[in-house]
């Protein structure tokens, strides 16, 4: 390698380092914002309450059903609340900066607009990680309290819940790079609901009869949706946990890649739009 090549590489690496410093600073700010937001902290408390209340719920179930209820309902509550946090925060954070004009202070600083989007995303990932850990701890405690056997696959289930929330965050950030919070929220929820229904659509497509088979246009659309939309069912291993089917790290890794692909796609689109925007 020539000397100029080395210098260029060093500059490139230094540039990356500087960029990371800025993304980190913006992520830190996002994290502080969330952690000092009463609504968010309230949501966390509510989530823990919900998980704990599943203990009460399990009291009502028949003896051997209790474990099932605890595992399933707890995981369901955690994933639902994580997605709610992802949608609400993802949709509102950028809008708030525009609305309150705090971007007038941030964007003229030596940052790229893409770094601002990346910083929000990274900050929200951290927020969601804390939320999942806190709710997950409450969940596992509720299992221990009722003598349900705990196993390491439950950690993997929580990691997968976090991945799903990350994907939804990237979708919310993408929409909020150009739409109003309400519109962004509706669009994001739309993608979420369709994403959760992908296995169902798939099943209908493979069925012998029904509207999807008969109408070619509907069939085409349904096929396009199942081919392109993220299949959010891959993030849910509640059934496996209950049936005692092991969840391997290779599965978690594969899902991580799947999730990262969609995140990169939505964030890159969001950055492109965000870069061209006027902040009036």
């Amino acid at each position, binding site marked *: 390698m020539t000397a100029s090549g080395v210098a260029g590489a060093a500059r490139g690496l230094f540039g990356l380092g500087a960029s990371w410093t800025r993304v980190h*600073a913006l992520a830190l700010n996002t994290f*502080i*914002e969330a952690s000092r937001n009463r609504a968010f902290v309230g949501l966390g408390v509510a989530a823990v309450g919900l998980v704990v209340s599943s203990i009460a719920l399990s009291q009502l179930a028949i003896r051997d059903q209790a474990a099932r209820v605890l595992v399933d309902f707890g995981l369901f509550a955690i994933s639902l609340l994580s997605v709610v946090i992802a949608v609400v925060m993802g949709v509102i954070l950028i809008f708030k900066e525009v609305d309150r004009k705090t971007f007038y*202070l941030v*964007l*003229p*600083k030596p940052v790229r607009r893409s770094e601002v989007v990346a910083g929000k995303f990274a900050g929200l990932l951290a927020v969601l990680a804390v939320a999942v850990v806190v709710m997950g701890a409450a969940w596992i405690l509720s299992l221990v309290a009722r003598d349900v056997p705990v196993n390491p696959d439950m950690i993997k289930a929580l990691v997968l819940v976090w991945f799903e929330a990350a994907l939804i965050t990237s979708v919310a950030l993408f929409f909020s790079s150009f739409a109003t919070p309400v519109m962004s929220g509706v669009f994001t929820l739309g993608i979420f609901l369709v994403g959760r229904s992908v296995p169902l659509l798939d099943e209908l497509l493979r069925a012998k009869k029904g509207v999807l088979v008969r109408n070619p246009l509907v069939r085409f659309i349904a096929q396009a949706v199942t081919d392109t939309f993220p299949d959010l069912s891959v993030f849910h291993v509640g059934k496996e946990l209950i049936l005692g089917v092991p969840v391997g790290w290779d599965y978690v890794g594969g899902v991580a890649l799947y999730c990262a692909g969609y995140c990169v796609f939505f964030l890159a689109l969001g950055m492109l739009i965000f870069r061209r925007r006027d902040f009036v």
Partner: protein
Amino acid sequence: MTPAIAVEGLSKTFRPPFRLKKVRAVRSVSFTVTPGEVFGFLGPNGAGKTTTIKVLTGLIRPTAGRVAVLGGPPTSIEVKARVGFLPEQPYFYDYLKPTELLDIFGRLFGMDRSTRHRRIHELLDLVGLAHAKDRTLRKFSKGMLQRVGLAQALLNDPDLLILDEPLSGLDPIGRKEVADLIASLKAGGKTIFFSSHILADIERLCDRVVILDRGEMKAEGRLDDLLAGGRWEKEAVVRARPGGAPPRVETWPEGTRVEEIDPATWRVVTPGEAFGPVLQRLVEAGFEVVGAGDRRLSLEALIMGLTREASGAREVAR
């Protein structure tokens, strides 16, 4: 020498959503700011000052024209690293303390921890907020926020400062402090570009000005030159004896006029050179002169004068 700011034929048109009418906020504005000068950007409300400044700080893109800041595009990281910006009525992350806010901005400038720590405390002292550094910004008053805004604009020790109405929201002492700060920054070799709609502020601080009105440039140059040309006026405040009539000035030197302050008090305005004789006639007519001095020319009067002058010049040219 590379100009600190070069603006050429800048236009910005807003098209508010769901409305047909376009707003031409800035129309072919051109000016150049030389390094080391204090440059005033003067214009009444809605003139297009903030819009121009948003282009200069990379927040919005021009509809037409070219802009260079420190020789580069305003959105470039290298340029932005050398610029400090105070937006108009700055609003901050109100859940942070000023030290936390400046710390995050310091990280964006790539400053290391010890530099940030030193600089933040230096600046909070400078803008007089050392006593409030442990309060969240939510609890700050308007003038205090303006001071935080100044502190963050100075964080990176910028070569160029772009300040949108830096003196607004401050009490008289604060205005004086900030004006002194601008003067000392200039002495330190900084280039300062600041907007205002108050002629006196600009007059005190600026080397050169651009005057903007409804998106159009009315003048560029030294304020002294713009103010010269016999448009300096003087005024006397006079009071009549009870039941007295206002001064009758129809036959007095041209340009003399009377404004009523209250039913027994009037302000008599005259061209500078006619002031002596007019004062004498007022005394002879039995009025009590309770005050006299230079007339504060308002920005509106100056712009009107410039517009009249420009249309006069066109008529002469024809």
